[in-house]
């Protein structure tokens, strides 16, 4: 079923039982195989709800979610879907089940009923893909936050998923742990072609994605490449979202009359553009 590893949301709505307003209303999106999609949105906008819908943890109140050709409404397919669309959560401590790293990586495989002989090589390759082989026999509580998240990724990876959904997987990490985890995911995305849905509130992380979806009040309000989305500084502000610092600075320079090109995300890009407009006179 690798042939159809798309993720589709067709006019999806979801309401929590005790909540009057729906957490998501009329969301449609199509995520292509191998795409790296970042999802942005302020607190309570419905990002986590969307993530849980993609993993069949929730079933939409209205509309359909189709993952790798399987509709999450069909109860029999739940395990197929969860194996293909793995999920990483925010708190590194609360998603590790076993007392030894390699046994935690095995957890998903044990649940799927994979024979023991087949498990061992799959665990080894998953751990080496996240560069955690050296920690296979360690206790999880001895690891750093970034390392724990990488173990969680290995646990998903061992199940050979087509899609990885990360719900603010870097929110509780320090900057170096954040970088470690993001790089691991980006490598998996590029080398193994795993589709990634990366929920975050770090604009710098979203800037690295192929596409950014902005969720506000349970709806996708903006969608496009990071450059396209972040150039709409005003709209982002209205949704209480920041844009990367350099994009904001470029916007202000533009307002002050500098004809900068759109889509500036990094320091390098801004420097290059300024250099192009006002070349430094070589000191002679």
């Amino acid at each position, binding site marked *: 079923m690798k042939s159809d590893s798309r993720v589709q949301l067709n006019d999806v709505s979801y309401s929590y039982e005790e909540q009057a307003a729906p957490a998501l209303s009329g969301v449609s999106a199509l995520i292509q195989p191998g795409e790296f999609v970042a999802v942005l949105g302020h607190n309570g906008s419905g990002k986590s709800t969307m993530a849980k819908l993609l993993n069949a*943890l929730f079933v939409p109140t209205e509309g359909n979610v189709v993952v790798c050709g399987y509709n999450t409404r069909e109860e029999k397919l739940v395990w197929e879907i969860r194996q293909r669309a793995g999920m990483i959560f925010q708190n590194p401590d609360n998603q590790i089940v076993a*007392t*030894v790293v390699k*046994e935690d990586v095995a*957890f*998903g495989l*044990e*649940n799927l009923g994979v024979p023991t002989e087949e498990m061992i090589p799959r665990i080894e390759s998953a751990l080496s893909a996240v560069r955690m082989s050296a920690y296979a026999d360690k206790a999880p*509580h001895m690891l750093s936050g970034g390392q724990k998240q990488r173990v969680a990724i290995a646990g998903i990876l061992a*199940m050979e998923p087509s899609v990885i959904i990360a719900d603010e997987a870097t929110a509780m990490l320090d900057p170096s742990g954040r970088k470690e985890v993001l790089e691991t995911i980006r490598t998996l995305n590029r080398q193994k072609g795993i589709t990634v849905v990366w929920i975050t509130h770090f604009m710098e992380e979203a800037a690295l994605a192929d596409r950014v979806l902005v969720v506000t009040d349970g709806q996708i309000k903006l969608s496009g490449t990071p450059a396209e989305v972040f150039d709409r500084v005003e709209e982002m502000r209205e949704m209480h979202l920041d844009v990367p610092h350099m994009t904001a600075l470029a916007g202000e320079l533009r307002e002050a009359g500098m004809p900068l090109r759109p889509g500036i995300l990094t320091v390098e890009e801004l420097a290059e553009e300024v250099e192009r407009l006002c070349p430094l006179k070589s000191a002679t």
Partner: protein
Amino acid sequence: MLNNITMGQYYPVDSRVHRLDPRIKLILTIVFIVIVFIARTFLGYAVILAFVYLASRLANVPFRMLLRGLKPLRLIIILTFLLNLLFTTGETLWLEFWIVRITKEGFMQAAFYSLRLVFLVIGTSLLTLTTSPVSLADAIEILLTPLKKIHFPAHELAMMMTIALRFIPTLLEETDKIMKAQMARGADFESGNLISRAKAMVPLLVPLFVSAFRRAGDLAMAMESRCYHGGDGRTRLRVLKITKNDWIACGVMAVLLALIILEGIFL
């Protein structure tokens, strides 16, 4: 098979006894308990003592580690001794004053029953010292599997044990953090009488419980998203295998059992 959990009593060294299959060890411990109960004479206890001592040597566990398990039970053991000493009726009078009568039979019975308790504790300590809690959980799950027919939750029980073991260090760390935070706000956990100390625990326990429940909710979600659906159709990474060592251990225990039974018949 390095288990980094340094929890409970587990004494993490490598030995033949450590490497025994946990199921076998659990069963043999139960047999040992039976042996302790059917022993009738002090000679029998001498044989059992020799056995326990040799087993601890073979397990690379210092004998005093075994005795440490007695400490929390010392009150019960002393009480057993005293009650038997004072209230056993006997013929051969050793000592009598006021209403106290100490007889030879009473002393023998007191010594016998308290030794029985001592051996029970030592025998089970030998199990917990040489078997990591996780392997024990495994063994319990497998041994209780037949009970699944009468809907006994064997898998769930073992899963609960493993998760508890996994989260104990995390929750301890958290307790420490909350304690420090409350101390920085002027909380005092050390001084005062029992009641005021118990009161001081409230601001510690409440956040701890709240967080434990949140963790439980998160973990349940994470487990489900990794296809957890109970014990049916589940395979395991850790497979237990019975080796020659296990058969030897069974043989030794059978010899001990035979000796104690013979001693009961002939002495």
